[in-house]
């Protein structure tokens, strides 16, 4: 009888142990090309880790952000891995909602680009692993510039860009001098306008958190933007985001385009772009301030503290953000398709530099982006094209709505600035920043 019990005990212990090995993790992610590629490569992960099943939830960025935030704030435990930006990481890391990540030596954590890594570290602790990084730069049509007799300087000023754009604009030929974002949203038009404002020497708030829309720098920046869009911008600009401008550029209808460095891979892809071989790249313009906007964005993988499978999640994150993963993608789909902007080693890899003609400029853009000191004047916040406070999503979108009305011709620059000022003051007072 005792032997039977012992056997049963042993058998059940074995079963329990075996069952404990098989884990399931759910990853919530954004539906861009790099993540979809990763999803397609899950079989490779499973080959190396057969006991972990990965469930994918891919959603459009805004919906994803809502879902994830609701889940993590209510400690719902629905997801084991979150794909979040460097906007959420410092906020949630400070809240204690993310599991701090420690990697062993094989991961080469020092290989991560310092600017990116800095954005994900709170009190010296890393809270997310970067998967994709971008800054912003200026893309321009080399052929149109040549035809107009213009040469793009290494560090263009906004003044030069304004002149060049107006010169290149040819409405009858459906050529817009410059295409810029105009669609309302904190991550849409405000990403661009915020960076522009930085480069004009403006800032969102002063050290006492008073909004600065009534200052001359913001007026200069917004007036320049509004005039430029009117004279040289495309039709429908007030609802144009990244995708709309990408479409226009690929069809040859933009002389210049300032947007995320990831656009480089799209505009230089001959399969989709009609002007693939005619694109030049240079750094984000400035207004003589030496500040190039400081746009820095990374998509990162993080583990919420409410996850019940943190170990397995960590295994996946290590696999997905390791150097070996980049090499895997390069092997399967070519170097032009590897997720950019996270590791220094990528930009020292000749094969990558050959495949991605814009890689140097992209890296240069990322190197100059300092989100800890994003503005010329001192500020109480971090963040280049955003402000790393939780309230920014709402404020940024409301201000974005007001500014897109200017582009739509529905509001004057002065009215818009006044509205932005009063709205932001109201919200910041509500949130307790302004006493």
């Amino acid at each position, binding site marked *: 009888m005792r032997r039977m019990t012992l056997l049963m005990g042993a058998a059940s212990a074995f079963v329990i142990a075996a069952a404990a090995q098989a884990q399931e993790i759910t990853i919530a992610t954004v539906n861009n090309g790099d993540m979809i590629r990763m999803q397609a490569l899950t079989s490779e992960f499973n080959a190396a880790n057969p006991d972990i099943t990965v469930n994918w939830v891919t959603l459009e960025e805004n919906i994803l952000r809502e879902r994830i*935030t609701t889940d993590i704030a209510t400690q719902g435990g629905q997801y084991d891995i979150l794909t979040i930006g460097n906007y959420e990481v410092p906020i949630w890391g400070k809240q204690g909602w993310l599991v701090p990540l420690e990697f062993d030596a094989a991961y080469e954590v020092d290989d991560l680009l310092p600017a990116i890594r800095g954005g994900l570290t709170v009190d010296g602790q890393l809270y997310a692993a970067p998967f994709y990084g971008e800054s912003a730069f200026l893309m321009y049509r080399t052929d149109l510039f040549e035809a107009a007799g213009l040469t793009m300087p290494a560090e263009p000023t906004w003044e030069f860009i304004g002149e060049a754009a107006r010169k290149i604009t040819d409405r009858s030929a459906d050529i817009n001098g410059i295409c810029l974002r105009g669609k309302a949203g*904190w991550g849409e038009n405000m990403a661009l306008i915020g960076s522009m404002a930085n480069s004009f020497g403006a800032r969102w708030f002063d050290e006492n958190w008073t909004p600065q829309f009534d200052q001359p720098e913001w007026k200069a920046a917004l007036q320049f933007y509004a005039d430029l869009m009117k004279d040289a911008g495309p039709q429908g600009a007030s609802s144009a985001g990244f995708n709309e401008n990408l479409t226009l550029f690929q069809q040859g209808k933009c002389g210049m385009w300032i947007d995320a460095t990831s656009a480089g891979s799209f505009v230089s892809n001959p399969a989709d772009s009609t002007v693939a071989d005619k694109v030049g790249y240079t750094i984000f313009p400035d207004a003589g301030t030496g500040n190039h906007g400081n746009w820095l964005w990374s998509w990162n993988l993080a583990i919420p503290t409410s996850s019940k499978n943190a170990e397995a999640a960590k295994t996946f994150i290590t696999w997905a953000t390791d150097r070996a993963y980049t090499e895997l993608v390069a092997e399967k789909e070519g170097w032009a398709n590897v997720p950019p902007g996270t590791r220094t080693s990528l930009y020292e890899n000749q094969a990558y530099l050959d495949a991605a003609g814009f890689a140097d400029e992209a890296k240069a853009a990322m190197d100059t982006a300092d989100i800890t000191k994003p503005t010329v004047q001192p500020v109480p916040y971090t963040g280049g094209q955003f402000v790393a406070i*939780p309230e920014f999503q709402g404020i940024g979108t409301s201000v974005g709505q*007001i500014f897109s009305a200017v582009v*739509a011709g529905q509001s004057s620059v002065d009215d818009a600035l006044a509205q932005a000022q009063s709205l932001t003051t*109201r919200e910041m007072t509500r949130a307790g920043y302004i006493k």
Partner: protein
Amino acid sequence: MATQETAKIARIMRAPAIILLLIWMIVPLAMTLYFSFLNYNLLNPAGNSWAGLFNYKYFYTDPAFFQAVWNTLILVLGVLLITVIGGIAIAMLIDQPIFGQGVVRILVISPFFVMPPVAALIWKNMIMHPGYGVFADIAKFFGAQPVDWFAQYPLFSIIIIVAWQWLPFATLILLTALQSLDGEQMEAAEMDGASFFSRFIYLTLPHIARAITVVILIQTIFLLGVYAEILVTTNGGPGYATTNLVFLIYRAARLNFDIGGAAAGGIIAVVLANFVAFFLMRAVGKNLD
């Protein structure tokens, strides 16, 4: 038919639906009411405190508030006008003897099957886009400047998209009502010399009055809560041109994560909706009997 026995059975038959809806209404409503009196921000769960009527005051003093209420009413009225008038017209047209009536019917009904976000995306990018949309191509064909719909006529554009989606519903209900119209009476009136117009006013309209009422009531309930289309196309802009009440609540709930504020907004929206429903019932309610 209402004998004592049937009245008792009737009460029992009504009960499940009423009880379910009661629970469904009360629990979330109570929680929302409770939250509306709190300073409850999802991103700062530890900082809950009593706020009294502050959330309501804050929501009500939002610079966009009155425009949002106005936009909501315009949106509802606009879509109702287009769908009811258009619905009657199309229903009358389809009711005629035509070839391929079945196919025509399914084509007319089809917009109702498309998910709102998808419909909005299609309209925004393939049809109304001033650069490469269908309307732009048509305008260019006639040598005119393409209209930037979402910049120049944002609320009108949203009304068009929503009306397109609801036209099938209205047409369907009105068509079924029309199909029971007494043909002989119509012919008699025609032979008596009544014009098309007076036949329409005195015979057709009264007959389909109940159907129109059902359409108006059900559509109003849905239209007061339109927000997917706005989110996908204009994000409430430019300025506050397409911000309706629900969008304001969305901004509070999903962007600011101000649950207390969103709850207050929700209560305000319910009160307003009840207002609208009350007047609606006064205006068209007698048609239901």
